[in-house]
């Protein structure tokens, strides 16, 4: 039942003046002037604030981000390669009831994907039973044949997962993408929260927001639970590509939250299939590696020979069971954009349940009928290259030129396995405080983080709400004008 909104429709100059409604679900408003119940406190609070006050808060938040060094690196730009992570002042609020569904859906999904990975690298029942075409798996660039028959501790392949959800116009959350390799962004969730608590302490308190600050602890317990048998008091380290990586801030931040060593490839050394790190007291054995380096760069002996980011021999130590990598090698086969279309079937196959969270309708370009339909109607679809991420290699049909459409049509026909198409979705909108000093709707998505340990699966209540800060834009990636919002999951 919508809460009764204060009748301030007519007051001039309040921050929601002319708040436009797009053809999308709005997170805050059920109808003009009627906020949804879980947004009512925020709404009331915002009505009482002048644009100047909001502006001051915004600047205070910016300074806090800069001084904490919460920045990310943009590739391919000479100046200003290090920028503060763009963020919006207003939190995105999710009710307790909605969160319950999201949490249940995510746990179910990651559980099924882990069973799938174990199967696909061992017995391959799902392929033999014809649920998924074997060709789809074997042609996936992320399929790692080195992992065939390798025993993974407790069969946990994906222990850290960041799933992208969007809310469709009917108000339901659906899964847009699974990130099962090295999902990032969680540090922005945690630091954004810290800043918001400084800026809106009372509001935060009144709303009854569920805490997320224990993420580091849960992550550490998750990683420890994967320790190889017989190793008491394991040493867990975080492997980073180094300070020039766009997510380095996050690597350092997480290592610090967990109180573990942040290592680079050059700090590691493999001898007799045991991984050591170089310390001032000599070499020390490493048991669990939370690696934030992609498969390709992990071990120059096995993967890319030109990689200086990994450690030579680490894959053999891993296969010998002397060290654990989280996430496992080869998990990318399960977040391939074409395989994505089969995830509901994967859930039904392994768990015998219907998916709690649905997929976005996805057309595979390997299927002739679907390919023809998309090529004829490309202006209506979003076309994505399966191997790309970060919003690159993507065509948004309705916002594209004829030339771009023609180019993508050519690419699809040349390499159908590499493309999928999805209907253009109106991502839900949430109110944002814009440069103009007004509050306007912008499109958002949601990336919650799932931690899958030997003892439990947990989802910290919250996540990274990414927002397309450019008016009308549907691209939420930080590399392309996206920013973030603090995500408040309420107790009730």
């Amino acid at each position, binding site marked *: 039942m919508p809460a009764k909104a204060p009748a301030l429709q007519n007051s001039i100059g309040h921050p929601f003046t002319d708040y436009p409604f797009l053809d999308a679900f709005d997170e805050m408003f059920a109808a003009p002037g009627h906020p949804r119940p879980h947004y009512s406190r925020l709404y009331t609070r915002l009505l009482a604030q002048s644009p100047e006050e909001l502006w001051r808060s915004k600047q205070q938040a910016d300074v806090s981000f800069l001084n*904490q060094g919460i920045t990310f690196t943009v590739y391919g730009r000479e100046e200003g390669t290090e920028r503060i992570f763009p963020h919006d002042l207003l939190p995105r609020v999710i009710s307790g009831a909605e969160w319950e569904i999201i949490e249940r859906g995510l746990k179910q999904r990651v559980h099924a994907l882990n069973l799938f990975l174990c199967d696909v690298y061992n017995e391959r029942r799902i392929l033999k039973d014809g649920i998924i075409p074997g060709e789809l798996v074997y042609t996936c660039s992320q399929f790692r044949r080195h992992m065939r028959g390798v025993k993974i501790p407790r069969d946990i392949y994906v222990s850290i997962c960041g799933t992208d959800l969007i809310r469709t116009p009917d108000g339901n959350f659906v899964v847009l993408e699974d990130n099962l390799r090295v999902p990032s962004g969680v540090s922005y969730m945690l630091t954004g929260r810290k800043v918001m608590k400084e800026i809106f302490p009372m509001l935060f308190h009144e709303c009854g927001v569920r805490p997320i600050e224990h993420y580091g602890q849960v992550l550490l317990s998750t990683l420890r639970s994967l320790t190889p048998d017989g190793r008491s*008091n394991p040493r867990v380290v975080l492997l980073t590509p180094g*300070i020039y990586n766009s997510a380095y801030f996050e690597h*350092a931040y997480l290592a610090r939250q967990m109180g573990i060593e942040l290592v680079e490839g050059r700090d590691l050394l493999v*001898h007799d299939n045991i991984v050591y*790190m*170089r310390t*001032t*007291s000599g070499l020390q054995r490493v048991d669990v590696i939370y690696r934030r380096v992609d498969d390709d760069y992990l071990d120059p002996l096995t993967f890319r020979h030109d990689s200086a980011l990994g450690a030579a021999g680490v894959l053999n130590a891993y296969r010998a069971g002397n060290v654990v990598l989280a996430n496992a090698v080869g998990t990318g086969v399960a977040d391939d954009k074409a395989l994505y279309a089969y995830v509901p079937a994967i859930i039904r196959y392994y768990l015998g349940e219907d998916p709690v969270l649905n997929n976005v309708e996805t057309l595979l370009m390997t299927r002739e009928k679907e390919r023809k339909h998309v090529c004829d109607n490309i202006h209506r679809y979003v076309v994505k290259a399966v191997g790309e991420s970060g919003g690159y290699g993507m065509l948004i049909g309705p916002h594209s030129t004829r030339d771009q459409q023609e180019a993508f049509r050519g690419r699809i026909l040349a390499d159908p396995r590499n493309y999928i198409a999805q209907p253009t979705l109106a991502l839900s909108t949430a109110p944002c405080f814009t440069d103009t000093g007004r509050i306007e709707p912008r499109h958002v998505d949601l990336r919650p983080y799932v931690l899958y340990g030997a003892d439990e699966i947990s989802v910290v209540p919250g996540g990274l709400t990414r927002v397309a800060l450019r008016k009308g834009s549907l691209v939420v990636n930080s590399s392309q004008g996206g920013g973030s919002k603090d995500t408040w999951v309420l107790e009730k």
Partner: protein
Amino acid sequence: MGPREIDMLSRVADSLYWMSRYLERADHSARVLESNYNSLLNPAKESRESRWNRITQSLGLDSDLSHNDTPWSLLSFIAQPGNRSSILGSIGSARENASQVREQISSEMWERLNRLYHEVNATSARAEFGSEPLRFLSVFREGTYAFHGVTESTITQGEAWHFIQLGRYIERADGICALLDASFSVSDGADDLDWTGLLTSCSALDAFRKVYTTNLVPEHVIEFLLLNAEFPHTVRYSIERVDSALSAIAEVTFSRHAGRITRMIGKLRSSLAYAQIQEIMMRGLHAYLMQIREQCRALHNAVHEVYVDYRTESVLET
């Protein structure tokens, strides 16, 4: 589970050491500039050229600067962001090293250093630099003092702390030696103002006056800056701190190769502890200073070989 023994990555130790060295270098340059800026403004007996040379030489610059340039141009040269030996360059390097080990230092330290970096780099700071260089230098020095204060009170005084101390004091010892050497090798026509300037470069004027209440005698200045054991900006004090940092590091790492370092620092320490100024002056100040600098360099290399870039075979054979 109880607290675990913490081992420090070799790379981290190296970065902490360099972070601290670069910061000390910038701080030293700022102090030298601040005091010489003052004396360059004054008319003097000695030629402008020799003063000029003294500054560039003591900061280890072989610059293209001509002594006909104004004091301002020297200062702006020192502030060039692209110049590695400039204040901005050193702060940039200190921050780069700190960012490599962000999870090892306290967040307060990182925030302070990061803020200092942004402050001195901000366009406003550069504009201010042109018109009011002394203000810029004092803002900068307050920033480094704040950083040291925060360091003192926000991190565990364990191994990381000792590597930070090591970097800071080895750089300081070397910096003061270079400064003394330059001041006395180009000292023709130097007057009281110059000796005062030298002491001010080491923030030592007040402390000096408390010890030597008489007139300014160059030999006293040298004795103080070289051999005083209690004032923080002297060579002897710095080497004592280097010694305590190194013994603490040897103790926590149980390194089998630390003996070599212990011998080296022991020699250096006693050569300062038992030295007499008359003897030093008789044998030649320049040679004595060169020898200390050489010993610092050798110590630096030994630390690198024992704790940072050791041969793995030597460790695996255990």
